[in-house]
C-alpha cells in the first residue's frame, strides 16, 4: 500500500528533528495524536496540530500521560493509526499502558524525546537514559521494537517504519529521539506519496460471528477488526484465550504470553536494521545509536585517516538487539567502543554479546554531549594498546 497523499508534504524542507517526526507520522498515515505537553517534545505536537486540520487528523490533549496513551490505544481500535509523544517523565507514566498495548496487541507509536534523568533531571539537555526503560519498563514479559534516529531525515524515515512495524506485528513501537535531535535543523527530503510504502493493517475479512480477536496467524500475529463493524468482540488485559476471554491458569499464560515474545524473537531478522560502515577490515568497531552515532561516524573517519582500522555499527533498531551480528563481529574484532549519553545501559548488552572475545570500552556522558569525538578518539587509541581481552567493561576515564 502507498501513503495517503494528503499527509505527505513532498519536497525538500529544512526541518528540526521534532518537526520531521510530525511529518513522518502524518506521511505514515497517523490520524490521531493523544498528547500531554512536556519539554522537549512540544514541537512535535505543535507541528502535528498545525497540520492536522488540513490533513484531517484528530488530536486530544489529555490530562496526563497515562490517559494520553490510554486514548491512543482506544483510538487505534477505531482503525486510526495513532501515536503519542512524550519525554522521560511522561514515558515513566506510560509504562502501565505500554503493557496494555502489548497485551491487547494494539498497534501504536510512542515517540520519546529523551532528556537527562532520573526524576525531573534536566529537561533541555539530551541524553539516552531511557533506552533500557523502553525495553524493560513495563511489568511482565514482552518484546518491543525501538528505533533510534540520528538525524531529522532518519526521524522522518524511522517514524514511518515504526508505524509499519507496529501494524505488521501488532505491537506498540517506540522511537527514541533526544533533546538534541529535537532541535537539530537539517534538510529533510520527503518523497512523493507513491514512493512511501505503508503496511496496511491486517483486517479480519470473515463473517462477524466467526471472529476470534486473538486467533493467531502462522506468524503469531492475529488479524484485527475495527470498533463499530459489528464484530462485537471482547479484549482484555487479563491473560486470555483466542476469544479474548480471561482464563487464569498457567497453560493459558503460556498460550497467551509466549507468542507475544515469540512474534518478535522469531522474526528479529526481518525487524533488525543496522547500518555498517567500514566493518570488513575493522579491528575496532564503534557501536552507537541515535545522535551519538553522529559523533561516532566522524570519529571513525578521523581515525581511518590516521590509519586505524575502525568500523561503525549503527543501530537503527535498538530493540530487538542485534545479538547475532555482534556475536559474529566479536570473533573478528579486537574491541567494541560504545559511546552512550548515559552511565551504562546498552553497553551491558554489548558486553553480553562480546562473549569474552572482544574488549568492550564504554564512554559515558561526554562533557560536550553528542559531540564527544575526542572521547571516542581517545578510546580508539586506548584499544591500540590492548593485548588481552578483559572480562569486564572498560570505562573510559575522562577529566571530569
Amino acid at each position, binding site marked *: 500500500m502507498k501513503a495517503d497523499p494528503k499527509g505527505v508534504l513532498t519536497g525538500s524542507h529544512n526541518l528540526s528533528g521534532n518537526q520531521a517526526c510530525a511529518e513522518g507520522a502524518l506521511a505514515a498515515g497517523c490520524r490521531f495524536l493523544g498528547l500531554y505537553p512536556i519539554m522537549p517534545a512540544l514541537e512535535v505536537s505543535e507541528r502535528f496540530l498545525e497540520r492536522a486540520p488540513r490533513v484531517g487528523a484528530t488530536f486530544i490533549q489529555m490530562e496526563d500521560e497515562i490517559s494520553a496513551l490510554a486514548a491512543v490505544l482506544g483510538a487505534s481500535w477505531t482503525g486510526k493509526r495513532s501515536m503519542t509523544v512524550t519525554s522521560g517523565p511522561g514515558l515513566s507514566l506510560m509504562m502501565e499502558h505500554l503493557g496494555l498495548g502489548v497485551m491487547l496487541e494494539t498497534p501504536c507509536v510512542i515517540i520519546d524525546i529523551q532528556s537527562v534523568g532520573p526524576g525531573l533531571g534536566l529537561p533541555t539537555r539530551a541524553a539516552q537514559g531511557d533506552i533500557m526503560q523502553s525495553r524493560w519498563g513495563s511489568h511482565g514479559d514482552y518484546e518491543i521494537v525501538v528505533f533510534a534516529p540520528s538525524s531529522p531525515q532518519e526521524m522522518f524515515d524511522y517514524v514511518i517504519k515504526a508505524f509499519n512495524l507496529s501494524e505488521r506485528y501488532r505491537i506498540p513501537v517506540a522511537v527514541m529521539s533526544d533533546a538534541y535531535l529535537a532541535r537539530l535543523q537539517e534538510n529533510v527530503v520527503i518523497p512523493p506519496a507513491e514512493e512511501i510504502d505503508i503496511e496496511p493493517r491486517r483486517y479480519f475479512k470473515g463473517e462477524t460471528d466467526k471472529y476470534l480477536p486473538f486467533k493467531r496467524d502462522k506468524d503469531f500475529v492475529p488479524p484485527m477488526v475495527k470498533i463499530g463493524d459489528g464484530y462485537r468482540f471482547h479484549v482484555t488485559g487479563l491473560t486470555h484465550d483466542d476469544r479474548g476471554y480471561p482464563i*487464569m491458569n498457567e497453560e493459558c499464560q503460556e498460550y497467551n504470553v509466549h507468542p507475544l515474545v515469540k512474534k518478535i524473537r522469531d522474526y528479529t531478522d526481518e525487524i533488525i536494521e543496522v547500518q555498517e560502515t567500514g566493518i570488513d577490515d575493522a579491528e575496532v568497531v564503534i557501536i552507537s545509536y541515535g545522535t551519538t552515532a553522529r559523533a561516532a561516524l566522524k570519529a571513525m573517519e578521523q581515525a581511518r585517516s590516521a590509519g586505524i582500522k575502525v568500523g561503525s555499527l549503527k543501530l537503527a533498531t535498538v530493540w530487538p538487539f542485534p545479538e547475532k551480528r555482534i556475536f559474529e563481529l566479536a570473533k573478528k574484532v579486537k574491541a567494541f567502543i560504545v559511546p552512550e549519553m548515559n552511565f551504562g545501559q546498552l553497553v551491558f548488552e554489548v558486553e553480553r554479546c562480546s*562473549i569474552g572475545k572482544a574488549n568492550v570500552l564504554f564512554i559515558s*556522558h561526554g562533557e560536550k554531549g553528542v559531540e564527544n569525538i575526542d572521547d571516542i578518539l581517545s578510546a580508539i587509541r586506548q584499544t591500540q594498546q590492548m593485548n588481552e581481552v578483559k572480562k569486564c567493561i572498560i570505562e573510559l576515564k575522562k577529566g571530569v
Partner: protein
Amino acid sequence: MKANPKHVLTGVYYIDGDVASGYGAMAAGCRFIAGYPITPSTEAFEAFCRWGPQVGAMFIQMEDELGSISAVVGAVWSGIKSMTITSGPGYSLMMETIGYGAMLETPFVLLNIQRGGPSTGVPTKTGQADMMQSRWGSHGDYELIAFAPESPQEMFDYTIRAFNLAEKYRCPVMIMSDECVGHMTEKVVIPEADKIDIEPRRFYTGPPEQYLPFKPDPDLVPKMAKAGDGFKLYITGLLHDEKGHPVSNEEYSMKYVKRLVDKIRLNKDKIIELKEENTEDADIVVVSYGISSRVAVKGVEIARQRGIKVGALRLVTVWPFPDEKIAELAKKTKAFVVPEINYGQVVFDVARCVHGQSNIVLVPHGGAGVHNPADIADAIEYAAKTDKQIEGVVEFKTRLEKLVFEGGFKLKE
C-alpha cells in the same frame, strides 16, 4: 541501634509472606505506609493497618499508586521511615516517582509482590517478570537495591534489611517478592527486639546554615535533614548541586548523576548477598532467586540422582548484580542453568558476566505457576551433555510449552 520493643511482635507465628513483611516493616521502625489495594499484595498493607495504629504508626490508603508513592517520599522527608506496597500494574504506575525518589536520594522501601503479566495478566498467580523493570523501569540513570526473598521468614528478615540498606545508602530499596511467597503460609520466628539491628537515619547534626543536603560523605552518601527543623531545605528533582539548588552546569550535574550510580556500584560488595551450595566442584551451576530457587532445589536433587555435579547459586539481592561472582564461577563451570518465571530477564545478566566461557540455559515459565522441577533437571542434564560452545542464551523447551503448542491442546477454564 536496636529495634524498639514496642514495634516488635516477638514470637513464633504461622503467617503468610505478605503479613510477615508487614510485621517486618513495623519491626524495622517503619512508621508510615501509604498503599493502594492490589492483588496479591494487599495482605501486607492490611497487616500494617491492623497493628500499626496500636503502636503509634500511621497508614493511609491513597487514591492511586502515584499518590501512595509520592506520599511515601514526602513522609520520608518529614523524618520517618516509610514504605509502600504494590504489584505489577501499580509498580508500573510508580515508575516516575521511583526515579524521582532516587534523584532526591530518598530512603524508602517498596514491596512488590509480582504476579503474572504483562498488563493485568493473572492477578492471583505468581510471576517474576518485573525483575528487569525494577532495575530499568524509570527514565534516566540510577541504581538501586532489590531483594528476592524465598520464604515468609525471609520476607520478615529482608524487609528489615531493606530498611537498613535504604537508610545506609539513601536509595529506594525494592523487595521483589512474588505471589507464591506472598501467599505462602509458613512458620515465622520474630526475635526479641534487641536481636534486631536497625540502621538509624544518618541525620545531619551541625548548624543549619552550613547544611548541604547533597554533600556526600566519603562513602558517597550524603546526610539527611527533615522538614520543619529550620534548615530551609531546597529539594528538587531537577539536577542539583550540593545545596540542592537546580543547576544547568552540565559538567557538575553529570558528576551528580554519576554519584547516584556510583554510590551503589562502588559499595556493591557490602550490599550483595548470595547463597552458594556445592559450587566448588560443580559442572553445572543453577542460578536462581525468589520462589524459583525453592523449586530449583528439587530440580537439583533430581539431577544429582542422575549423577550430575550440580551447584546452586541463589541471588538474595538481585540488584546490584554479582558480576564478579558469576565471572569467577564461569571460569570453572561448564554451564549455567537459570530458571525464572519469565521468558528471560536476569538470565541476560548472567550471560553477560559469563563472557562466553560457559553455556547458558534458560528455563522459562510464563507465570501463573512455578516450574516443574523435572524441567529444571532436564535442563541441567541437557547442559551437562552439551559439549559445544553455544553463543547466546539457550531457551529450554519446557513440558508446558510442548503441551500447549504441540498438537491437539485445548484450553480449559
